[in-house]
């Protein structure tokens, strides 16, 4: 097993003890709650007369079902309204702060935590959502959990867990122009596969991550789960501390130096032992685009889709299944992939840097007449910042709709959905069958700038040719 990694240090600090089954009782330092996976958990507490054990470590927001066209209440969708009311009642009854739209701080749960300064190095974080791995960007262990586990964390502040193995993924060198964190993680998943991370925590390290912004690190850690790893993290450094400083829940000034002193003990040591180490070269990474139905089915944008005769056995079967759903032609050029819908948003790429990158491509341009596009900022603070910078105007002038904050077409629990077999260029994280709301809908994952470029052309474009 790994030793002296950040994973080990944080795990040990939160390990309450070993249970009779041999599992560990792990204390959760930050519990983030949203409307979809919590109602049954709160009901379970009510039925058994339990309270929230650590209400001051528990925070809620709403994101999945929020309509992004209008926030007017009651929501047009009665199920969404009911779910929202349940969240309001539950957080009220159990004394959990709720960051809903009127607070001006609402957003996708994985954006709200970092924006408020709640997410800090050395914490364990849990949330009833698989992209909780995002918070690993701060050097936390951040676990996506199911509703029964949400119940456990609410009632006891703890989870029963087994220790993971740790794989260090180093990416060294310098990324080429126009190669973004999204491309880095799509590349890693392409190389290690969607099952490669089963049983592992991913530690992202090397020059590329040392140089990367916090927003970029969040994009990468976010998609750890797409690579099969339940958690991913980056060791905290000056970039991390700088991001946290001054935020609402950041350690106040008189605690700051002490906090820093502790945080600096957390990164994996020089003598750390890993269960596995993988090294990639930044120069090998190009802008990426997925063509299939798993996030590993991707190619560099200047390549061709795989031919069926290049694969055999299970791989061939999965290609056949992907092509049957995607209605694409094996061997065709990635830049010829058609696009009818463009979605910019999600907890992967709904941050201000993402909107800036997309706006830079769209400025003074129009999207293709046959493309419908929506921009959904990940949170209200991002939305406000973007409007201050005039990005909303750029998007609207180009023909995009400018929306309220939420998950939106990342998973289509609100009215934003693909229709029929529409094919979307999406800055989100999952291209699973049916993910964007239509059972026959098709999704191409790429960076926000590439989504913008595809929207203009009506097909996938190599961003390097546009921005050069």
């Amino acid at each position: 097993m790994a030793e002296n990694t950040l994973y080990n240090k944080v795990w040990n600090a939160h390990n309450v003890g070993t249970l009779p089954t041999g599992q560990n009782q792990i204390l959760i330092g930050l519990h983030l709650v949203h409307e979809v996976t919590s109602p049954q958990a709160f009901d379970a507490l009510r039925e058994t007369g339990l309270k929230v054990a650590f209400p001051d470590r528990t925070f809620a927001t709403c994101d999945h079902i929020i309509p992004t066209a209008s926030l007017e209440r009651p929501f047009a969708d009665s199920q969404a309204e009911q779910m929202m009311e349940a969240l309001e009642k539950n957080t009220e009854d159990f004394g959990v702060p709720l960051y809903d739209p009127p607070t001006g701080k609402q957003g996708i749960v994985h954006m709200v935590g970092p924006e408020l300064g709640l997410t800090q190095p050395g914490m364990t974080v849990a949330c009833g959502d698989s992209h909780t791995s995002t918070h690993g960007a701060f050097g936390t262990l951040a676990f996506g959990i199911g509703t029964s586990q949400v119940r456990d964390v609410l009632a006891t502040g703890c989870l029963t867990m087994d220790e993971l193995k740790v794989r260090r993924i180093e990416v060294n060198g310098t990324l080429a122009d126009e190669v973004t964190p999204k491309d880095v993680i799509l590349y890693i998943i392409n190389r290690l596969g969607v099952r490669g991370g089963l049983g592992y925590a991913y530690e992202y390290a090397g020059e590329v991550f040392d140089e990367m912004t916090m927003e970029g690190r969040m994009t990468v850690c976010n998609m750890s789960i797409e690579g099969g790893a339940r958690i991913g993290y980056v060791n905290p450094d000056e970039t991390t501390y700088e991001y946290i400083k001054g935020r609402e829940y950041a350690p106040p000034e008189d605690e700051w130096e002490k906090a820093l002193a502790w945080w600096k003990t957390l990164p994996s040591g020089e003598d750390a032992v890993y269960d596995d180490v993988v090294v990639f070269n930044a120069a090998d990474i190009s802008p990426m685009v997925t063509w299939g139905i798993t996030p590993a089915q991707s190619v560099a944008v200047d390549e061709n889709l795989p031919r069926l005769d290049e694969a055999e056995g299970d791989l061939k079967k999965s290609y056949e299944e992907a092509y049957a759903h995607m209605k694409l032609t094996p061997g065709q050029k990635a830049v010829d992939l058609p696009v009818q819908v463009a979605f910019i948003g999600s907890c992967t790429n709904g941050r201000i840097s993402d909107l800036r990158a997309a706006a830079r491509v769209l400025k003074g341009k129009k999207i293709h007449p046959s493309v419908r596009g929506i921009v959904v900022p990940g949170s209200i603070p991002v939305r406000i910042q973007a409007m201050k910078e005039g990005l909303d105007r750029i998007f609207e002038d180009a023909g995009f709709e400018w929306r309220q904050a939420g998950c939106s077409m990342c998973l289509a629990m609100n009215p934003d959905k693909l229709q029929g077999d529409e094919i979307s260029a999406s800055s989100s994280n999952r291209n699973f069958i049916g993910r964007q709301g239509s059972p026959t809908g098709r999704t191409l994952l790429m960076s926000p700038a590439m989504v913008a470029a595809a929207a203009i052309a009506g097909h996938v474009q190599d961003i390097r040719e546009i921005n050069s």
Partner: protein
Amino acid sequence: MNDKSITTLKGTGVSVPGNDIDTDRIIPARFLKEITFARMGEYPFFDERFTQEGGKKDHPFNAPERQNASFLIANDNFGCGSSREHAPQALFRWGIKVVLAESLAEIFAGNCAMIGLAAVTLSPGDIHEIQKAVDDDSSLELTLDLKTKKVSCGGREYGIEIPESRRKALVEGTWDSTALLLSRLDKARATAEALPYMNQFNSL
């Protein structure tokens, strides 16, 4: 051992072949808008079982002879993707008590354990053999024995893998972990007090 103890399970099987079957496929997101799990049993694999007009498609979960199946036999990375517990809830409430797979996604396996659904893995070769046997004979009885860590069917026995702690939790009936964790809340509070970020960083 208590009344939640799960040691031996018997039943017939249904195989859902394919790798990387994600939880969006097991239960599409629109069914997550319900605030209870009560009706989840109606939805497993919904979009693969029904056309948009409501017609039945050809799917193992629609086959009349599979309606009483309680063993689901799956392939690699079953349950990947979203953490929605609605996925194991949907399978469980439809009637699945055991998942046999080549491999299981982490969060999905944990969610299964939390609701007392026995999810275990077997070698690809064994899974293929069991899938074939089950496909050939819908009345074939399978037995999972968590004590001996074996699955038997058609006169053959296969070894299973399951993390020892999960196996114990099922066998000892402690998979519903709230009570256990509650009984140790004082210990959790002690751990919390020692954590720098919970005590104004005074414990350094």
